[in-house]
């Protein structure tokens, strides 16, 4: 048992505890955010020190490989960006600032574990570590909307957990083990119809994990929770929590259930088509920008699932690339919205009119991120779509790509509507919309990343291709 392999997770939990303790003694709470972000360097450094190693520990329950290390870095960056974008928001709280940051850090630790466990029970534990932190963060504001959102998230999350556990139990009952590689050996061949127990198990797993990644029909919680939660947490849910879900799905389905990939591949393909279509169609009718982005993230989950449906190295590496591109883009859009709504106190799209005159840079950044979400060059979103569409075509899923392209066209309508409102309509007042330095820093990071990946995608693609090598030796 080599604890050093767990150093990133351990140091991250340690950081969370330090933040809580500092909160007790410090008068100036602003330092907490600084400590949290600066402290993330430690697990980041451990991750980089481990880079390139491939080992398992805790009797094969945890794996350190390119895949888990990629996600370590991913979640650390996400946590840092979310904390940076929370500073203004959190400074309005009277109390519990330390808890806020600590919960973000703890959930990040849980997500890192989700990406590195190779055993069903520990997957469940990691998942709950993430979920419980996020339930608390969702209800953090204690106003009626936030509390309702937290409550809904908790109750539906519990249902999803139960479904997931039931699915795990089915798989365990069938194979007699909870270790992914042993499941892979024990899985009976001959398709799912020959084996209804396995069918039920897989469908329940899809439902349980589908709740995490918010695929139709397990997405109902998304709009209400996203609208009620503190906006930085909405951003966090929409990128990090979703990415953790995809990481776990890749682990479980590729490592343990590869033998029946034809069957679950088609489930994901169909769910992808329904999810992206429903997300985009309903997003059109939204008037609240947070709700619109909530449906947009559902649609994006649809595109992401194309990578799951195209079961191949190409598909999974495209999926990881899409996750990276999507995370930077969506976070960028949310950060811009946080900055704007901090000032104008409204999430209605109509109230963004003339924003290009009141906050030129924020409007530009938001427009840029929305363009990336559509998938127009030279943005990361464009490259991500190219890769994932190509993977699907290579896997003979041309019908799905056609649906996705039509969906992309539909999505342009509601994304560009925001751009139109910001640039072409007259502002209600000429009052400038200021933003704090930390928000601007996080936003610049996102936008530069989106541009970089749009111009030089190989920078990330190289890493994602190495990360999925473990599934396709």
């Amino acid at each position, binding site marked *: 048992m080599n604890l050093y392999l767990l150093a990133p997770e351990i140091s991250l939990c340690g950081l969370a505890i330090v933040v809580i303790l500092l909160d007790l003694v410090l008068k100036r709470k602003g330092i907490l955010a600084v400590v949290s972000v600066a402290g993330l360097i430690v697990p980041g450094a451990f991750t980089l020190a481990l880079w390139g190693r491939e080992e398992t520990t805790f009797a094969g329950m945890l794996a350190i490989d390119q895949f888990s290390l990629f996600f370590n870095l991913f979640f650390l960056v996400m946590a840092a960006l979310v904390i940076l974008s929370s500073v203004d928001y959190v400074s309005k709280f009277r109390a519990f600032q330390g808890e806020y940051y600590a919960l973000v850090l703890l959930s990040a630790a849980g997500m890192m574990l989700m990406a590195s466990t190779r055993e069903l029970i520990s997957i469940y534990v990691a998942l709950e570590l993430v979920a419980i932190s996020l339930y608390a963060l969702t209800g953090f504001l204690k106003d009626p909307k936030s509390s309702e959102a937290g409550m809904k998230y908790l*109750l539906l999350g519990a*249902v999803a957990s139960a479904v997931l556990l039931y699915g795990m139990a089915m798989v365990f009952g069938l194979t007699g083990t909870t270790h992914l590689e042993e499941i892979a050996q024990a899985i009976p061949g001959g398709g799912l119809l020959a084996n209804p127990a396995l069918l039920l198990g897989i*469908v329940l797993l899809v*439902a349980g994990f589908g709740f995490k990644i918010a695929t139709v029909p397990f997405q109902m919680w998304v709009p209400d929770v996203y609208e009620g939660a503190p906006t930085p947490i909405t951003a966090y849910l929409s990128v990090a929590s979703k990415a953790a879900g995809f990481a776990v799905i890749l682990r479980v389905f590729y490592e343990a259930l590869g033998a029946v990939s034809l*069957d679950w591949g088609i489930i994901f393909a169909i769910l992808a088509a329904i999810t992206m279509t429903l997300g985009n*169609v*309903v997003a059109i*009718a939204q008037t609240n920008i947070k709700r619109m982005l909530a449906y947009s993230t559902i649609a994006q989950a649809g595109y992401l699932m194309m990578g799951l449906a195209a079961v191949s190295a190409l598909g999974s590496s495209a999926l990881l690339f899409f996750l990276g591109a999507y995370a930077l883009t969506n976070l960028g859009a949310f950060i811009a919205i946080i900055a704007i709504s901090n000032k104008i106190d409204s999430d209605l799209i109509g109230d963004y009119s003339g924003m290009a005159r009141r906050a030129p840079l924020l409007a530009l950044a938001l427009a840029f991120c929305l363009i990336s979400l559509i998938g127009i060059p030279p943005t990361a979103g464009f490259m991500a779509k190219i890769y994932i569409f*190509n993977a699907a075509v*290579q896997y003979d899923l041309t019908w799905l790509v056609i649906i996705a392209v039509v969906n992309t066209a539909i999505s342009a309508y509601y994304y560009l509507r925001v751009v139109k409102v910001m640039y072409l309509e007259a502002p209600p007042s000429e009052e400038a919309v200021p933003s704090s330095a930390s928000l601007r820093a996080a936003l610049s990071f996102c936008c530069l990343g989106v541009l970089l990946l749009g111009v030089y995608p190989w920078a990330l693609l190289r890493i994602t291709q190495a990360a999925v090598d473990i599934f396709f030796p």
Partner: protein
Amino acid sequence: MPEVALAIFLLPIFSFVVISLIIRPFLNKRPQLSWYVTIASIGASLILSLWMLVEVIKAPGHVLPMPDYQWLVIGDTSIHLGVMADSLAAVMLIVVTVVSLVVQIYSRGYMHGDPGYCRYFAFMSLFTGSMLGLVLADNLLFLFVFWELVGLCSYLLIGFWFHRPEAARAATKAFIVTRIGDFGFLAAILFLYAKTGTFDIGELQHLALVGAIGGTALTWAAIGIFSGAVGKSAQFPLHTWLPDAMEGPTPVSALIHAATMVAAGVFLVARLFPMIASSYEAIMTVAIIGGFTAIFAATMGMVMNDFKRILAYSTISQLGYMMLGLGVVGVGVARGAVALEVGLALGVAVGIFHLFNHAFFKALLFFGAGSASHATGTFDIREMGGLRKAMPWTFATFLIGSLSIVGIWPLAGFWGKEQILSQAWHYAPILFYLAMITVFMTAFYMFRLLFLAFGGEYRGGAHVSLRESPAVMIVPMVLLAILSVVSGWLPISEFLGGESHSFFGALASPMAWASLLLAALGILLAYAIYSKKWISAESMRRRFAPLYTIVSRKYWFDELYENVFVVRILVDGIFALFHWFDDHIVDGMVNGIAGGTIAAGREIRRLQTGQLQAYGLAIFIGILAIIAFFMIFG
């Protein structure tokens, strides 16, 4: 060295980012900062370009090996990008950075106090970076990206004073007309990619030389690429945009519409010379279009009354010369009259050597125009006159520039022109005679301009007090005047693999004397009409009235394009058809689909009741639906 090459074009782009994201929003109280940033970045690029030139000179075969960067991998296809560091790129880098730096210095005086000061230098930086990237690109895809970027900057800068309707119109016209050529260019790029699976310029040239692509396919590809060059370099029949582009600020005209961007077409032909010269039909087209444009534009230059428009026609004419130089050597290569290796290098050397010299003297002439209008407030030469006494520096430098462009020994313009003429003599005699007549016309229109603007007495309103321009404008003019004398003495031609020339030996050839004589005649005629008035310009005009009308109306090309092509054929014909199709068929479908989608969105939205039980129920219905799907279709 690869880092140096990248830094050369990234530095000005960085300057653009800094100006537009930092200085313009936050430091707009101090717009001068944007000038400093621009100067620093372009100065650094110039130093790095000189460094690279030295390295290329030292390198064997004048080519520096450069690494390729993998840019994009889609399945089995991978696209590499990199820079090409050969003598052609090195020379172009020097042209672009030197002229750009001088233009930026001049702009400080010219744009002083303009409300768009920051915006101006942001665009200028972006232009310079893109132009440098264009020169360095080693594959067609990236070359095309930069090609479009410089086109965009040109559009933005022609329309810089966008509140003036003529400027906005000219910008649009430039954008659309060049787009016609670019369409052919892009089609050729995609066609070549489909044929060969590569965008790499070196590979494509190799494939063309060994005959892996050839015949009609190669001819069409080469003509497609040349059509891009025709649009960018304002060659006939896409020449109409450049005179109108003079609506932009004068330093912009000097940099973009005289020295660098419009020369990009010539550069493109030179860059792909081995490929284009592999097709006789294509390279013959280049030579004929070039030779014809040279004389065609010169005729219009002889009758214009707008200072900058005369210079614009002169630019078109000189660019035609460069195309002619490339074309005639290429014709020789294609006919087998000259050894392949030698001919390929020679063609590039002939075309680019003139480009190199032209950049300096033409930028200088535009500076003269800017300086003259700075004092008089107009570009109409009928309202100038007598500037020689009031503006001695402007006059002296303008005279040097004029002598240089006319091709008087031993000024810079002489050397490039002589090479083009002698190559034309060898391979295309008819085009040679056209070029000789052009020499006469060039001398005439340049000195007509000079005598009208600088000679005689001031004819403008009395309220203007003529004064020499400030030093920040004069110093760049003096610098360029020096270059307009000496740039031809540099061994650029040998460096590019062409013929060397000796300083006095050049005078031994009868052809040189013939062209000098024609130039002298042109100057003399202009002197007789416009300075001494021995011959009345008015009676000349009356005697040749039909000819004068044709030329001064620019052969009715604007009318032809706008009234016949645009209005009759496109708007009344094709567009009307499209419009009907769009209104009735496309819109019908789109409105139907959009209406359906929006209605569906509203309906599905109702399912989102906010009721927890409904959400939980959805999960279970979903699970059952998936299982049912398998039971039914599995």
